[in-house]
């Protein structure tokens, strides 16, 4: 049996250009949501993605966007698989992704909280995070709410320029 494969196009290169439906300034690869894209011996492209949050409603659109992009690149059979473990963390966002977020007006996350196997300690303090204002650069900002317009973002306000902004919260 002869299997025809596209050797001139790397499916990863195609998948890595697909942007996030909610954060169009970054790609799924920048976010660390895209875990892999490879050509199998039978000609199928297997793509692996992981949800940022369990309830992320954008997964279906990401899946369709990836299939669409790979179809346009000439890959007829595309199998998009969900990877749940290890869980996504904001530490997976690339430096390039962080730069693009900030340039797009969204403060990138700091270091995610340390993870252990034991009980998760209570955090009762007013806020444990800091973020510089993506508009004026001031570090004097305050948290308005830990929850924002999408599951992955918090709301903050700059005390210097007074503008509100979004912050990809550490997880």
């Amino acid at each position, binding site marked *: 049996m002869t299997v025809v494969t596209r050797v001139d196009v790397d499916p990863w290169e195609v998948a890595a250009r697909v942007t996030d439906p909610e954060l169009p300034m970054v790609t799924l690869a920048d976010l660390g949501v895209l875990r892999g894209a490879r050509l199998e011996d039978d000609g199928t492209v297997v793509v692996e993605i992981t*949800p940022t949050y369990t*309830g992320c409603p954008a997964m279906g659109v990401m899946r369709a966007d990836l299939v669409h992009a790979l179809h*346009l690149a000439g890959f007829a059979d595309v199998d998009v*698989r*969900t990877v749940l473990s290890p869980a996504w963390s904001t530490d997976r966002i690339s430096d390039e992704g962080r730069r693009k977020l900030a340039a797009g007006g969204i403060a990138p996350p700091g270091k995610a909280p340390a993870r252990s196997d034991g009980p998760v300690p209570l955090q009762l303090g007013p806020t444990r995070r800091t973020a510089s204002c993506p508009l004026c650069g001031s570090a004097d900002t305050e948290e308005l709410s*830990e929850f924002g317009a999408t599951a992955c973002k918090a709301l903050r306000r700059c005390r210097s320029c007074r503008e509100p902004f979004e912050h990809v919260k550490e997880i």
Partner: protein
Amino acid sequence: MAHEETVYDALDHAHGGEGQWAFGTGFDEPLAGVDTTVPDGVDPAELGEYCLMLGDDALVLAQRLTEWVTASPELEEEVAVANVALDLLGQARLLLARAGSVGVLGRSRQRATDSIPDEDALAYFRAPGEFRSTALVAAPNGDFAQTIARLLVASTVRLAVFARLRESRDPVLAAIAGKGVHELAYHRDHAARWLLRLGDGTEESHLRAQRGVDAVWPLLADVFSPTEVERRLTADRVGVDPATTREEVQSVLTEVLGRATLRLPDWPADAPPRGRLGEHGPELTELLEGLQGLARRHPAATW
């Protein structure tokens, strides 16, 4: 062009071009590509039953929390409550899909049309007696303070269970728990900080916070009581006996109430499991009428 012109065409194509079932959550199977093999020596029916317990708790609490959308005390809080509910809905979706993957669908499969995914069939087409949630999540919201008190208790319990479930021999449960832990920590801490504000706030907010706590505490009576299924799955290192979380849960709640200057009510005496066995009060029936009514009236609706 040989392939779909737009992403909308691709979405439609992914669904066989027949339109998307109107009440579902997405276009994709939530466990697509996940290895759903049942671990050695585990009864699939019991694994599915256990997934219903954990999934129904999340589904029912999500539904309660969304009652605050358009009615929250401030806009930011409305967004927060909706986000918490969305996280829980995501957990419910995976857990109900896991139950469906091992064939635990009850009578929902006969009531739902074939094109409706398992997790939606379970959510929309089971009778109240087929639900496995506890009374803690089904109880009406009460005022905002009581809602926060319940969210604190429910997310503290769930976080303690999920933290242990990360070690489950079932890789799907372990993965759901590994992800859920970080989300639940946000929920619990959010509720805890609200209770501090309310308890240590004005005379009125203190009074209401105390009333809310007093109303929620008796709902802990059956939360630490394992069913036979939970006992067996715990022995098999697949599930978590809720009794093992008691000390941690009580310690967290005691700390929060102390900081909030609220009086710690007596812990209720242990009661045998009820909700986990399908015994519920009228509040679950009422909640499910809101959740399921439209889908049941138009079971074949698409868009």
